[in-house]
């Protein structure tokens, strides 16, 4: 059992957990952040995606001991039901989802994309999301939502 200090969504949190614990269980069960969805535990579906120092990372397999001093960003950091982030608002405007289980990971990945490339082409969005599985078939709406977000977020 290690005593770890993690920076999650801008706040320093102390966690007692073995260093080999996957980050997702710490988020879910120690920090009360269940927004990063558990999908496969195999780095195959992308629903658990979080950002570590701005880079997309599978929280289902990333061991928490490797994250001391790194900035972890989860879907909860973006916005809330009452006050959604412009990226989330674009998803709401496009009704870009069905079951919604994939969306935390997809929105986090889209955030990383737009942070590094504020005006991505359709092909760049597709490439960024291609490792994410949406089983309901909301793909077209999701692509439209990211394009809409790129437009609205670039406005001064």
């Amino acid at each position, binding site marked *: 059992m290690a005593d770890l200090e993690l920076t999650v969504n801008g706040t320093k949190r102390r966690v007692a957990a073995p260093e080999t614990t996957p980050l997702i269980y710490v988020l879910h069960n120690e920090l009360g952040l269940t927004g990063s969805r558990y999908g496969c535990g*195999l780095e195959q579906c992308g629903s658990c995606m979080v950002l570590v120092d701005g880079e997309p990372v599978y929280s289902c397999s990333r061991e928490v001991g490797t994250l001391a001093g790194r900035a972890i960003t989860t879907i909860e950091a973006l916005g809330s039901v009452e006050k959604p982030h412009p990226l989330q608002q674009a998803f709401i405007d496009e009704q870009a989802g069905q*079951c919604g*289980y994939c969306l935390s990971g997809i929105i986090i990945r889209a955030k990383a994309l737009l942070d590094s490339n504020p005006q991505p082409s359709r092909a760049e969005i597709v490439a960024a999301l291609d490792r994410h599985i949406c*089983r309901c*078939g909301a793909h077209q709406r999701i692509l439209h939502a990211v394009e809409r977000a790129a437009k609205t977020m670039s406005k001064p």
Partner: protein
Amino acid sequence: MNAPLPLSLRENPQLTRWIRFLDDGTVRIATGRVEIGQGIVTALAQIAADELDVPLDRVKMLSGDTDEGPNELYTSSSLSIEVGGASVRLVCAEIRARMLDFLALRLNCARDELDVSDGVFTHNGVATDYDYWKVAPSIDWNAPVSGMAAPKPVSAHRLIGQSVPRFDLPAKMTGAPIFVHDLRLPGMLHARVLRQPNRGASLVSLNEAAIRRAAGSDIRIVRVHHFVAFVGEDETAVQRAVVAAPDHARWDGVRDLDPTQSEGKWLRDQQSDDRRYGAPEAKAEGRKVEATFSRGYLSHASLAPSCAVAEFKDGHLTIWSHGQGMHPLRTNVALALDIDPETVSAHHMHGAGCYGHNGADDCAMDAAIIAREIPNRPIRMLWTRQDEFGFEPLSSAMMVTLQAHLDDKGYPRDLTTEIWSGTHVQRPGVGGATLLAAEALPKPLPPWAPFDAPEERGGGATRNAVPIYAIAAHRILHHLVTTMPVRTSALRGLGAPVNVFAIEGLMDDLAANAGEDPLAYRLAMLQSDPRAHRLLTRCADMCSWSGRGAAGSGKGLGIAVGRYKNISAYAAVAAEVEVDEHVRVTRIWCTADAGLVINPDGIRNQLEGGIIQATSFALKEQVRLGGDGVRSRDWDSYPVLRFSEVPEIACELMDAREHPSLGAGECTIGPTVGAIGNAVAHALGKRVHDLPMTRERIIAALA
């Protein structure tokens, strides 16, 4: 004359099961229909708000609750609007009418001088002192629903027909705790299950010490006969235990499957229960054409593994589940545990997309077994990804042979659809089927008896086996295979995707034989179905059918049409493909007729989703069997369509508001598979008869 009450109202005539006016000025509408990613709860609220004349924000929905809500069995078969919505509408109309009757007497005025505005009763347009909440205690809530109050005419709808945004999506887009997976209760324990490999397999030995070592911290091992679970406060530890466990467990009586059993054609020589529907035996008149089509097994492949929470406290079992039917779940868990259903409550919570009977119910049963062993602690059971792929019921492989006798003009005068398939409905409690873990308990329930969805409910394997076209004589020969290698049950469309793929494929080939354009050939057989005729014509316009090129160019355009179950929504789909060794679906056009549309954007979302899922079925998906069961247990071995592979989709809803609402969630599945099959045939100049249309099959067709 009144139509018979919808089934839901006949089964739940008590008004308080449906509607209550709450002290906070809202009205609570209860439904047995549950949100499974299709937006149903929002649509039902629209219906209620319109009928009651209240704004949408006054409507609170309670969905899937055995304690207070109605029993509507399963949310399945595209019936939630047709039956569930019709029930909510009648209930609301009746409540409104009863209150108006009461108030007319109280105010000594004519009833037609009264109206409702934002829940307040008005007299000749002027607000009275009365509203629903004030009048509610005065009406007889014990009188059963009569269904006699006429719902509003279409012209009076305000919210129906509007694309109201879904209530649940903002939570899902902001990571709010809305899924059952997110439920965290005080004292909760995490649990994983070591699955019995198959019915009849018995656990010979379990090296508990080795599993505890792998877990790394304290876990409890729950064993009930051949049911084994790992339970503890530390989720990481129970997960490590379940990953290690198969290497430390020895089973007897494990099945040994052969990879050839993965194919639809394997079913032809198996023991079956044979039925026949429709016209008598074919008269051997006219030219005969025969073709055989097949498909392998499909997985639901819901994005999340199944999850459930159960707690056994003071003799009462409470379950939170993402299953499709909370009332059946209660009954089935009680039966399997041999306890009184009155001592069980089941509450629905959201889960990952559900396209039919997946692992949800079985997972809830697992949680319930453990909760009984460890009372007073909520038990959160989560399946592994591998177990969701390995043990959820699959959509049966199928083989379909079509035999047509043609008239002088080359049109079928007689058609036989002969089907070999496992069942498409093996839900717990239906036809004697049980929950998975019940088979591991000391007293397993009797084995399942051959059963498939009956024809009057749209059939299972036979779903859409009757063509939409006017054909003088048609019959179905149904071979329900009774000794299946794996458990099979309902997946979106049931038998429809294979049957429509086969029928629409044959129609294209018959059109070619007759020297006719496939569109014109179809339209000639749809003269007596104006809705289908209009829909197909419009779809052909959208895809510029008239500019369709010659066959065999590597680029193809195909079209298909169907009416789900032959009684629900219509859809026509056109697909554009590019084929080298792979098939790439580049564009899809779709028209749909769902009668009166409650939420147009909600339906479009369902049409688009169905199209993408069916494209995935057609091109990529097949469960691989072998060894002790399912071999394809992750997303690499069971690939589904990705962002880089989805077509550009254009959908159009036909205005058919004068017709009753038709369930639309499954209507695109068959026509999409059919259209892609025809587009690939057009691109290659040769037909691929077996699904999925993989690279190997394309190469074989070209050889």
